[in-house]
């Protein structure tokens, strides 16, 4: 008589038994019972629910996506400052915008100006959205500016793109730490945004088709 071992039974959890196998199972109820348990186990595995990621996971993903220049978002450096900073955050961002306007105009050639920015802003929400848009425009312009600049001038001191990216990561980290201490300081704001732009431009230059492997 042939013996049905457990691995054989485990295989039967996926398919109908042959006539010979059915015969064996009928003659050995203990094997049939084992098979039923294995089938139930397999069904239970298939019914396992999804799992919620740990808290803070999205924030970590978002930060990485931003640092790689893959997304733009309203929840950016300026708006992630403590809420009590209120209008000072907006003011600091406006300073940045004004500082970046010249660069933005030079790059895009578009008719940008402070008047366009403030028109229609009546609530804090309006202002926050305007800041997000302005900051994004400034960042986009600055990134493009850096890209054009670096294509014109060879970056010899940082010919190793990995080293350069690591150096920029350190600068961004330092800038973010500094901004936590002095959230309203326009120099630190400008330094951080400028570094983020350079980081993004560097990331775009170094992404090659094989990096899209998945």
């Amino acid at each position: 008589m042939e013996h049905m071992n457990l691995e054989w039974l485990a295989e039967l959890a996926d398919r109908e038994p042959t006539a010979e196998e059915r015969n064996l199972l009928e003659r050995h109820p203990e094997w049939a019972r084992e098979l039923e348990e294995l089938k139930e186990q397999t069904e239970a595995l298939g019914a396992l629910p999804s799992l919620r990621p740990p808290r803070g996971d999205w924030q970590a993903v978002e930060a990485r996506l931003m640092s790689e220049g893959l997304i733009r978002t309203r929840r950016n450096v300026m708006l992630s400052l403590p809420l009590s900073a209120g209008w000072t955050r907006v003011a600091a961002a406006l300073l940045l915008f004004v500082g970046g306007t010249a660069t933005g105009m030079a790059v895009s050639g578009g008719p940008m100006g402070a008047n366009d920015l403030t028109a229609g802003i009546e609530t804090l929400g309006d202002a926050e959205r305007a800041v997000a848009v302005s900051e994004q425009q400034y960042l986009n312009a600055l990134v493009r500016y850096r890209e054009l600049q670096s294509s014109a001038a060879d970056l010899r001191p940082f010919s190793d793109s990995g080293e350069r990216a690591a150096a920029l990561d350190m600068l961004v980290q330092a800038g973010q730490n500094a901004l936590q201490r002095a959230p309203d300081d326009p120099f630190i704001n400008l330094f951080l945004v400028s570094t983020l732009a350079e980081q993004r431009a560097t990331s775009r230059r170094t992404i090659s088709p094989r990096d899209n492997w998945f």
Partner: protein
Amino acid sequence: MGRRRAGNPPAEDRVQLATYITRDGMTEAQLIRQASDGDGQAVRALYERYAPRVYAVVRRIAADDDQAQDYAQEAWIRAIRALPTFRGDARFSTWLHRIAVNAALQALRKAETRGKRERPLPESLSAPTLSKDALLQRRLEWALDQLPDGMRQVIILHDVEGYTHEEIGELLGVTSGTSKSQLFKARVKMRDLLKDIREPRMEPGAEAWST
């Protein structure tokens, strides 16, 4: 297909603002298009929709909470980076799931120094206050974590995620025959592990996985 271009005209950003308001009413195709264009809110919406499924498969493959979080994040970065190449030939969820599985498997291969996980049986596996379903889920998750890597990967991909042996062979770089053999061994090992933790005082017919 290029990535989001730098120096978008201001008008494009104004359109973007309007879509924040109507985000809930957007179709998945619209969300994907906007996410592909670098719209953080659209990416967030995709994340909210699919993060539990991505995290679940990555967590089960990794069998480790900390590693799972790293692998899941890596999966999202890869997916968003590759989003402009998504043609819609497969469902987005299937495409994303495949990226997550690959991210986890690749990371595991790199983690050569990973020590063997020896996990004590958590007390919660016999907590009388848990519902039968919750208890069953915890026991299954615990038993999956105990399996050797190869067996665990195959049983998760086949029995939990529904991949075929051919697909598993392709993902793991083994033959479909090896995948089958590993699966049957894994099922038996799981059964043994679960038998060991089953409550001896449990009433007849109330086994953890009885339906």
